[in-house]
């Protein structure tokens, strides 16, 4: 009976809309992350690089590669404050980024925005219009 109720809840119109929304959002974010990973130049073979905007205050750089047959990964999180930007890697404590890194981050996020507009959103808009 409970299963039947859950099943019923999953197929209510609002639930369908919510699921569809989540699916679309994830799909776009995955695409953005792929495009973001390419803005720093060619990606070496066997490396999975992603760079994306998680929310208005958080940027993520994720990289995965093989080392001696083992899969390694590193995640760098940039948290943007009103007067500072801090980064943490693999859950380590936050530290302020250098001026040089801040300049590169500005360039990167600007490029990211223009590239995702061009490669993610424009194709969607072109199809619909």
């Amino acid at each position, binding site marked *: 009976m409970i299963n039947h109720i859950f099943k019923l809840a999953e197929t209510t119109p609002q639930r369908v809309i919510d699921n569809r929304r989540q699916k679309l959002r994830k799909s776009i974010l995955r695409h953005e992350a792929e495009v973001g990973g390419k803005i720093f130049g060619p990606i070496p073979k066997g490396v999975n690089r992603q760079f994306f905007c998680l929310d208005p205050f958080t940027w993520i750089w994720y990289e995965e590669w093989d080392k001696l047959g083992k899969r390694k990964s590193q995640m760098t999180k940039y948290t943007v404050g009103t007067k*500072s930007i801090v980064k943490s890697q693999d859950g380590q404590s936050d530290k302020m980024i250098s001026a040089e890194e801040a300049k590169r981050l500005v360039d990167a996020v*600007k490029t990211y925005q223009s590239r*995702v507009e061009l490669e993610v959103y424009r194709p969607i808009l072109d199809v619909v219009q």
Partner: protein
Amino acid sequence: MANLTDPAIDQALKVDSWKVIHDLRVRNSKAVDYVQRAVEAMGIFEEEIKPDSVNIKSKVPENLDSNNNEKSELSDIEEIKAKIVNAKKLSDQKEAGQTDPVSKKYYKVNADDIMDTIDPDDARAKIMSLYERVNV
């Protein structure tokens, strides 16, 4: 159970998709803006912006540039002052009986030019006084 092929649901899904896309684009714009603002607040770019390299003034419309308006007012005042001084000089020359070396006529103050540019009453009175003294 709800009919999942209901056109109303299809429509709702379509509208909702647009909202998802719109929200993500807005989020990206905000995120880029926040990074730029944070970096500016950190003072990183200040040393790179030099007056020689960036002509900020050229990007500001004249009517929004208060310094420019102030300069304009100052130059008007300077111009009026110069005209008063010139009128006074001509008046003195007239009184001294000097004439224009070319026309051999007495110096005359172009009262219309002066009056067009002078607004303050005291300046007007002064110019008029000089004008009356110069013109025969």
